[in-house]
């Protein structure tokens, strides 16, 4: 039992010590993903199965490359935020929860970086 009033707990910004920051960033990334999804999915879907040369030619266009890199960046950011909430909801034990949260954050950075690097390599290969 900790001798803390509810008022005092709120002033410490809650159990995660960052108040509404995570919640707010999640809304922000979701808003950004709405136009990005529309801009990304159609060129990507059309490029699927068109062969290597056509795909490279498409993403050598700076606009398509920029949208793809931005979609991957914000997409994995939003994914990390969402998966973090799911882990926090369903994994109560401290050790596995911490391990999963670390893997989640690092894994999403890994895939985002790989995606951005790949798009950039194609875009600058002209």
């Amino acid at each position, binding site marked *: 039992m900790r001798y803390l009033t*509810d008022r005092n707990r709120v002033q410490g910004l809650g159990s995660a010590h960052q108040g509404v920051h995570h919640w707010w960033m999640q809304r922000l990334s979701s*808003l950004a993903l709405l136009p990005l999804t529309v801009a990304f*999915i159609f060129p*990507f*879907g059309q490029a*699927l199965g068109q062969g290597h040369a056509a*795909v490279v030619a498409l993403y050598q266009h700076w606009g398509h490359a920029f949208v793809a890199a931005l979609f991957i960046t914000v997409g994995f950011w939003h994914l990390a935020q*969402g998966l973090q909430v799911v882990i926090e909801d369903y994994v109560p034990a401290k050790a596995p929860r911490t391990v999963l949260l670390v893997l989640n954050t690092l894994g999403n950075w890994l895939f985002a970086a790989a995606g951005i690097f*790949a798009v950039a390599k194609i875009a600058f290969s002209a």
Partner: protein
Amino acid sequence: MADVNRGKRPLSPHLQIYRPQITSILSILHRVTGVGLTLGMVLVVWWFVAAALSPGYFALVDGLLTSWFGVLVLATSVWALWYHALNGVRHLFWDAGWGFDLAVVTKSGIAVLGGSCALTLITLLLV
């Protein structure tokens, strides 16, 4: 001392007690599609990495993604993406304090379901 009952609060009844309703089903679906889209995002990155590495490796990955199983996974991901996006907009309206009437919640839920199916069809027709 606000901590007297912390950790000993009454628990809410378990999920299986409740009758499935459109509100709860769509809420669960939002989380399921969100988690499921991890696979779609990883596949997209795999495809780009393959395209950046070599034409031979790209042919392998692109072939996998356009095989019948790959198309099944991607088409499901497209529906999950549109559902999660549209229901996300529904959530943003709720966050702004709009659309909380039970009748509106039901209607917006049906609209999101129908809209996600329509957008999926349009996407699959256009690509």
